[in-house]
């Protein structure tokens, strides 16, 4: 690792990271520092490596080269037993939702809290209020395969936020939602941001970024293209 720089310590740090799937390079020499309570978009065309970048952060995939530090944990050296510790600090909205198909929406959300050891009462309260917040209270008992695409996505967002995580990784969290529902979800994410969470949101939707504004990391075929800050459009 490089010696710590001046100023605040970054909460997420990628240091010359490469990721290869077999011969195919999905990420090439990426170095990024993310500071606490930042709200960052990761953008780029289909196949650019957005999801792969997020996967590296929660150890969904190991890095091929380079180092990643997340909230003080060096991911190249972390022991298998401590991986759950890392993941409990991170809330993840997966691009393909990854809801457990045999458990109801409510159970999917409650399970995260159970895994954290939350008291049953608090589990009920938190899960219900989150589901209400994403407009899914009526579907709490439904199984994910019987939900519409957008409903599944909202359930996935609720689950990601259930543990009140320090870091939120959201992969296209509004890709299946109409404009109104999408802005509801973004309001929710922004609330988390205000409460102190660090957010990384992968999206190909440049219109959305322009509507919201914020720091943007642009990927192109695995390479870091530019990092810019786009001002929020006046509505």
């Amino acid at each position, binding site marked *: 690792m490089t010696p710590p720089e001046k100023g605040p310590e970054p909460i997420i740090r990628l240091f010359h990271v490469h990721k290869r799937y077999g011969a195919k390079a999905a990420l090439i020499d990426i170095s990024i520092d993310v500071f606490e309570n930042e709200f960052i978009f990761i953008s780029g065309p289909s196949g650019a490596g957005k999801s792969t970048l997020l996967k590296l952060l*929660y*150890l969904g995939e190991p890095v091929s080269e380079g180092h990643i530090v997340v909230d003080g944990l060096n991911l190249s050296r972390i022991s298998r037993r401590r*991986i759950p510790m890392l*993941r409990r600090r991170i809330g993840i909205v997966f691009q393909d939702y990854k*809801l*457990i198909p045999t*458990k109801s929406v409510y159970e999917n959300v409650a399970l995260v809290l159970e*895994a954290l050891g939350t008291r049953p009462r608090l589990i009920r309260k938190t899960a219900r209020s989150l589901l209400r917040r994403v407009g899914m209270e009526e579907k709490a008992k439904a199984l994910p395969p019987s939900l519409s695409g957008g409903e599944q996505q909202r359930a996935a967002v609720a689950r990601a936020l259930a543990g009140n995580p320090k870091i939120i990784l959201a992969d296209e969290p509004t890709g299946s939602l109409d404009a109104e529902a999408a802005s509801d979800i973004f309001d929710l994410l922004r609330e988390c941001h205000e409460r102190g969470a660090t957010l990384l949101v992968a999206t190909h939707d440049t219109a959305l970024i322009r509507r919201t504004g914020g720091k943007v990391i642009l990927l192109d075929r695995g390479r870091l293209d530019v990092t810019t800050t786009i001002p929020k459009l006046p509505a």
Partner: protein
Amino acid sequence: MSLLGRSLRDLWAHRFLSAVTTFAVAMSVLIVGAFSLFVVNAAGIIQDWGSGARIVAYLSPGVESDKVPLLRGEIGRIEGVAEVRYISRDAAMERLRKGMAEEAFLLDHLRENPLPDALEVSLFRPMKNWRRFAPAAQAIREIDGVAEVEFGEEWLGRFLHLMDLFRLSAAGMGGIFFLAAVFFMANTVRLLLYARREEIEILYLVGATHSFIRLPLYLQGMLHGIIGAGAGLGALYGAFYLISIRAPGVGTFPIRFLSEEIMGGILTGSVLVGWFGTYLSLKRFHR
């Protein structure tokens, strides 16, 4: 929610898979149980036959009846000997007459009783001690006052050969059945977890710990084991009952069901296999 609560809820959510798994365990237990039942009863019947095996020591013509207690004591000290009974020549003739049945009329032509007095020697637990018949007979033969020793050598040889064959094939088949049953159960549990792998992977991704994920799965594996084993033993008892009312026993040996120890062993074994199958399958899920 409690561990047991979560486990039972999961079983219900996967009731098709759980039913199939439990059924597989029940079938495995049925097979191993049926075979154990067969071996236990066959061994009992053979034991029953074998317990009639005796060594007969014919006394030398000149031996007086007051020397008999001495001889009995001497024979009684030989290893493995359980009982020594005196059979007078007259009692022997009476027995022979009965044994010959249809040909007993031959004996009416005898001028005098040509049989000698004899001592009939039985061994402790003849089943286990058959191989000691020959050395025991030899030891008795060497005692003063014993003229001749007889114990159906040829018959015993054949019988031992047959017993060996039975034991060998029972052990071979038992081994095959046991292994097959264990592999079956373990395999079925693997298939079950293969079908549930998505769910398990998701749990890992949302930060659940090893124990949070695995304890319910182990518990479920063990529940499949014990429920399946119970059902299998129940079905076996049904089959046993139907057979035993038609054929309650052979000789003095009543057909019996598996002993409590064996049943306990089967139940414990199934639980262990449920655990083990889960263990094997979970080794694939690292994170």
